[in-house]
């Protein structure tokens, strides 16, 4: 029953799923653009409170990890099992570094008393509250996606170890890779919106 050897179809399904992820974050970006228009000055001044260096480092980390995932697919195609597992492990580790950076960044802000509902934030002008509301929502949701992506990559590592992903059968890895690239791509939009253009 079914069509388990139709890899094109399985990839189609994955792409369709990625569309839904784009729409999910799309809703948030719509909010961002509307609020940016309403509170341009507050957004600009608040945006400068974010650490551009940390943001840039995280961007580089994600780009490198995406490269590692792509390289792992090539390694699997060449039957270099150990190499593929090493590359994926590298990507997962980079994901962890990304989250550690995020933890530091959020922790620092919390330390300064800036978090949703905090007394320090409640006294600010409205634009600043909305900015941080969006900041925490969007980066938080993105971090959640990073965690899910890491779980998927770990599953792939295990599958390669068990021989379930191999030269002729790497659809799962390809689809998980697509997901990781998408999470990466979403960050590519988040990064300038919060760290660069303001």
């Amino acid at each position: 029953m079914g069509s388990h050897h139709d890899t094109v179809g399985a990839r189609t399904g994955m792409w369709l799923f990625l569309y839904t992820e784009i729409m999910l974050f799309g809703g948030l970006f719509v909010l961002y653009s509307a609020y940016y228009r309403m509170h341009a000055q507050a957004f600009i001044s608040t945006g400068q409170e974010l650490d551009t260096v940390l943001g840039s480092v995280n961007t580089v980390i994600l780009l490198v990890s995406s490269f590692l995932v792509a390289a792992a697919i090539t390694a699997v195609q060449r039957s270099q099992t150990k190499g593929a597992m090493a590359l994926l492990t590298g990507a997962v580790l980079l994901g962890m570094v990304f989250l550690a950076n995020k933890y530091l960044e959020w922790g620092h802000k919390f330390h300064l008393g800036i978090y949703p509902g905090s007394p320090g934030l409640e006294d600010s002008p409205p634009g600043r509250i909305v900015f941080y509301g969006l900041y925490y929502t969007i980066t938080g949701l993105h971090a959640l996606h990073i965690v899910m992506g890491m779980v998927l990559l770990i599953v792939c590592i295990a599958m390669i170890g068990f021989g379930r992903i191999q030269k002729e059968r790497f659809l799962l890895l390809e689809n998980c890779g697509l997901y990781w690239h998408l999470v990466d791509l979403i960050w590519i939009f988040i990064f300038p919106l919060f760290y660069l253009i303001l």
Partner: protein
Amino acid sequence: MIPRPWAVSTERNRAIPMGETMSNAVTSFYDTPFPARFRGVWSWLFTLDHKRIALLYLGAATFWFIIAVVLGFLVRMELMTPGRTIMGAETYNAAFTLHGVIMIFLFVIPAMPAIFGNFLLPIQIGTDDVFFPKLNLLSWYLYMLGGALAIVSLFADGPPDTGWTFYVPFSVSTQTNVGLTLTAAFILGLSSMLTGLNFITTVHRMRVPGMGWLQIPLFTWSLYATAWVQLLATPVLSITLLLVVFERVFGTGLFDPARGGDPVLYQHLFWMYSHPAVYIMILPGMGVISEIIPVFSRKSIFGYKAIVGSSIGIATAGSLVWAHHMFTSGMSDVAVFVFSFLTFIVAVPSAIKVFSWVSTMYKGSILMTPPLFFALCFIYLFSVGGLTGLVLGAAGPNIQVHDTHFVVAHFHFVMFGGTGFSFFAGLHFWWPKMFGRMYHFKRAYLSAILIVTGFMLHYVPMFILGLQGMPRRYYDYLEQFAPGNFFAGLGALIMVPGLFLMVINLMVSLKQPVDAPADPWGGTTLEWSVPSPPPLHNFIERPRPGKYPYDFSRVRTP
């Protein structure tokens, strides 16, 4: 003795002596669990067979439908006389909220794609299952989980009282358990989205060789257009509901004007999904009607390509009209003008379909059956619903009738008269295919007449009440609105027994032996070429789709 008008013979049927049926020769999917190792109830709970999953949905959706009907009935009984009739104001708020939430998220949105779509889409395109059978089962479990959460939200901290739209700021500040209901709606959205994803992939990759895009039956076409809306619009609702949850839990302030947020943006985001969602609800229903009308007119559908095009047109244009729900929310006049104009545009493809159905019947050889009767009621009720939609879509009249009972009557004409009646029509049309049994015709007609009579008496007074200015959702009203509300309640008293009669009539048929022929009506699409009920892999030999799905030249009426 049950009347058997389906004994009209078609060429295919004539090969089978009456009384003996094809179903006996082939083991049906009921007797063939898939995966084969599961038995009894497990063969249902772990099934990967699209037909069994469809029936799982049918069972659950019927349960929810009955609950929501009873809730709606109680709301109407409360409103039958001014002041307190049978319940207090708090209970009333909870009752209409749950009626809306259950009807929309647990019945109207999932019913048609998940029940008929799952059962018939693979058969109509000549294949053995959907592309992702496991994902299909997961969707059902998500649906059940969402439903379970909706029940739990009833009993923890009081039922939600926001209405099904969850408008901020009330949904953020109310003390009732809105968070849980929002989570339920989020999960149900996920379920519907995954079904859509599955259908798109299935239609693209699994059509039987020889079936091009313009040989696909119209019901499958409508599901395909619907699936895109499910896929692209649902995530927007998901994020919106999630934001309200964040708002309640963390106080992010994104929709709070005191903290720089804008509640109108919530409405934008909400309707960006929820308006396309009404097309998720109606498009498959239009597909059902497009199947039924040609079969009982013994005539090829008028304007096949126009109907296909209008399905896509509705899906596209319907995604661009969301803000017509917000003409009085404080938008710019330009936005009001643009969205009003776009709303009128959507009427065009819908009207194309209505004209096509009516033209199909013109000079056809019409055979009256319960499915056709429901379908004809659909055409009338849907047209009234659609035309009153234009009253609402026009910016001027909208100001007068916004948030009044006019709106309630309009969307019940579309959602109940449209989607509901097409669902009933489809249920009576495909019942013999799904269960291999025919139901009692006279009782089916009687139930249809009761429902449609009660329906008119129920909702027409609401149009008048709305024009007179009675707001929706109010617990109490002025003396001058009393007659209208009384008649509406009277309509409910006729309609609800009709609904129960219909359900009971269908249930009773299950006691009969399995004796429906493969093609009781003389249909031409592929589902009528397989036994009723179909075998596990649907087709005994690879189907050969015709050049055109509605070629009736080989179907004969006696």
